[in-house]
């Protein structure tokens, strides 16, 4: 079947137009399928795992993404040079860039993803909304496209407060501002536009009613180039801070089999409205009464895809590569089952005790948890520098159990085993969340993390040990200072101290 501007045919060498943990993920799938791999890297990533693990590696520019991972011409040129006949864009960077998908098509390269047109329609939140509502998919009430700032201000009372200012080209929570009263609207629009311009190069924003106490539930889809589209079930992604997901799980405690089936059908209808091919995700907002509304479609592989993989047994990245090669889906809807429970914690380089301020620096230790039911997808290693050029995610820690309780216990155990030093991480946040009553009972929504969760809400149990450790450290520090000051100190006296602490 001929898809508009999309090649689906056999290929043997894949260029991964990405970095970090997702580049590793894609490389693994390629290697397992016997495909040759090409990595690209910026100045900051010479020693990154994806560069060392791929069959070939090409340097494409300085650390700034605009001059490397976002440089379409350089990437296409590298594909030609290496003889790569397919490109997997991962997530972020060029994954939802229709111009890039089109450039691949025109260069005769298979783009592992949907057609440029599908990316365009779904990439613009406003056209996505109107396209899917035409096929009966419910959408959140909001403003129509093409409104000036003044028109939006006038329309705001009809949309209803509280509302959200959202970037049309946006994603990942950027270019988004909540507004509770009309007085704050002008500032919020200005601020959202600024952030949107910096992040996406497009400052178009729109207004959308903010559904309070909502859940963010998304459906994973796979579609081949023969018109087959299936749902792989839902993911619960309500635990977010500033619209950035922190913890995801599959399945969701809030969804039963009937609702799952219904949402799956609606999601498939939305994808079919744009002739979608390959992996994609439909994001829904769900209110307390279990009404769900289309939020947006992500026309790419998602960060949190592992939780779906673990409960369905489907290797989503391998399916992506197969679909791109022109194969039919390897399973039908009735073959899809969800077994057990998976939880993913995103480990970020940020300080949960300092307002989650991003933390930069060099990783000195990276000791990964392992054992039954534990998976870590990471792109960092000791000696790697976390810089402000890329986002602060260090890794994804995913735990699987036969039940949700087992998955939680496993996650607690894995979080304790995980050791990262050199930068601050949000592991303490995850540890507290895994003990939170509301999390354990499944009664949370998208406002939970920001409004009703606290790291410091309890009696910390190790005050005595903390006092002892600090004192020992202080003692060691002053002893060492005294030794250095003592004139004619022989080497042996210093080694005596080090011998104690070895």
């Amino acid at each position, binding site marked *: 079947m001929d898809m508009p501007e999309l090649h689906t045919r056999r290929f043997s060498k894949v260029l991964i137009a990405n970095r970090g943990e997702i580049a590793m993920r894609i490389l693994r799938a390629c290697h397992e399928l016997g495909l040759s791999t090409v990595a690209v890297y910026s100045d900051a990533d010479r020693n990154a795992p994806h560069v060392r693990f791929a069959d070939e590696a090409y340097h494409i520019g300085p650390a700034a993404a605009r001059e490397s991972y976002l440089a379409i011409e350089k990437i296409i040129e590298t594909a030609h040079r290496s003889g790569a006949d397919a490109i997997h864009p991962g997530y972020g960077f060029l994954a939802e860039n229709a111009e890039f998908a089109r450039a691949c098509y025109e260069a005769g390269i298979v783009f592992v993803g949907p057609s440029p047109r599908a990316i365009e329609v779904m990439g613009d939140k406003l056209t996505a909304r109107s396209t899917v509502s035409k096929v009966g998919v419910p959408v959140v009430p909001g403003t129509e496209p093409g409104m000036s700032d003044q028109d939006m201000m006038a329309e705001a009372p009809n949309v209803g407060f509280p509302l959200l200012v959202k970037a049309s080209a946006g994603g990942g929570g*950027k270019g988004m501002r909540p507004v509770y009263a009309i007085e704050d609207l002008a500032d919020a629009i200005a*601020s959202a536009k600024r952030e949107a311009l910096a992040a996406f190069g497009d400052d178009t924003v729109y207004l959308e009613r903010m559904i309070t106490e909502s859940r963010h539930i998304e459906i994973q889809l796979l579609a081949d180039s023969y018109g087959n589209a299936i749902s792989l079930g839902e993911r619960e992604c309500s635990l977010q801070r500033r619209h950035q997901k922190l913890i995801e799980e599959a399945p969701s405690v809030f969804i039963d089999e009937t609702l799952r089936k219904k949402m799956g059908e609606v999601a498939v209808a939305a994808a079919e409205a744009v002739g979608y091919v390959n992996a994609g995700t439909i994001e829904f907002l769900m209110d307390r009464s279990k009404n769900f509304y289309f939020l947006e479609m992500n026309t790419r592989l998602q960060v949190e895809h592992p939780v779906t993989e673990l409960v369905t047994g489907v290797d989503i990245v391998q399916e992506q590569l197969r679909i791109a090669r022109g194969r039919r889906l390897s399973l039908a809807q009735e073959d899809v089952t969800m077994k057990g429970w998976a939880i993913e914690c995103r480990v970020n380089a940020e300080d949960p005790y300092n307002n989650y*301020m991003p933390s930069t620096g060099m990783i000195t230790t990276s000791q990964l948890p392992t054992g039954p039911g534990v998976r870590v997808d990471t792109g960092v290693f*000791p000696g790697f520098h976390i810089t402000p050029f890329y986002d602060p995610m260090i890794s994804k820690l995913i735990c699987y159990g036969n039940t949700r309780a087992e998955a939680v216990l496993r996650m607690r155990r894995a979080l304790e085993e995980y050791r990262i030093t050199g930068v601050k991480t949000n592991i303490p946040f995850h540890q*507290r969340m895994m003990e939170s009553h509301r999390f354990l009972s499944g009664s949370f929504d998208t406002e939970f993390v920001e409004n009703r969760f606290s790291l410091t809400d309890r009696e910390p149990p190790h005050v005595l040990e903390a006092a*002892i450790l*600090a004192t020992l450290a*202080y*003692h060691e520090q*002053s002893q060492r200072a005294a030794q250095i000051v003592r004139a004619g100190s022989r080497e042996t006296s210093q080694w005596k101290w080090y011998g104690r602490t070895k």
Partner: protein
Amino acid sequence: MKYYARVDDQEFIIEIGHENEIMVNDELYKIDFQKMPDSGVTSLIIGNRSLEAVVEDKDGSWQVLIRGDLYDVEVEDERARRLASARGDLQVADGEIVMRSPMPGIVIAVSVRKGQTIHKGDKLIILESMKMENELRAPRDGTVTQVSVEPGVSVEKDQILVVISDEHSP
């Protein structure tokens, strides 16, 4: 050697004696601590309980991270203690807080001016980094004595942004 360690409102009198023994508030503990060579992690065995922690020196006080909980500990030795009480229990710090940039970035907005009285939690600076806007807020009440940046300026990590003095200092 005798030390005074303070965590929140709890105080501990700690005496470091012979190897592997310490006294905490007159109770004797057998301890062993080892700093892991490859990381900054300290392994503490106290009695026979085993704990791991990350201990960091932060501007004179200590931050100890144990199983996800962060403890702020102030430690003084006897000499410092004697000096402090001789001064009549005045604030040791000069009452100034220097707000430094936590990472490289660009200043988007400055919400305060020199001489302005501010309260804990007030927005001071909006900094853009890691593709997102980050708000820096006042850690306590005070008066702004210095604003070192303006919108549009690029800053390095630890670069001084704003200086706040204790509202009680002259």
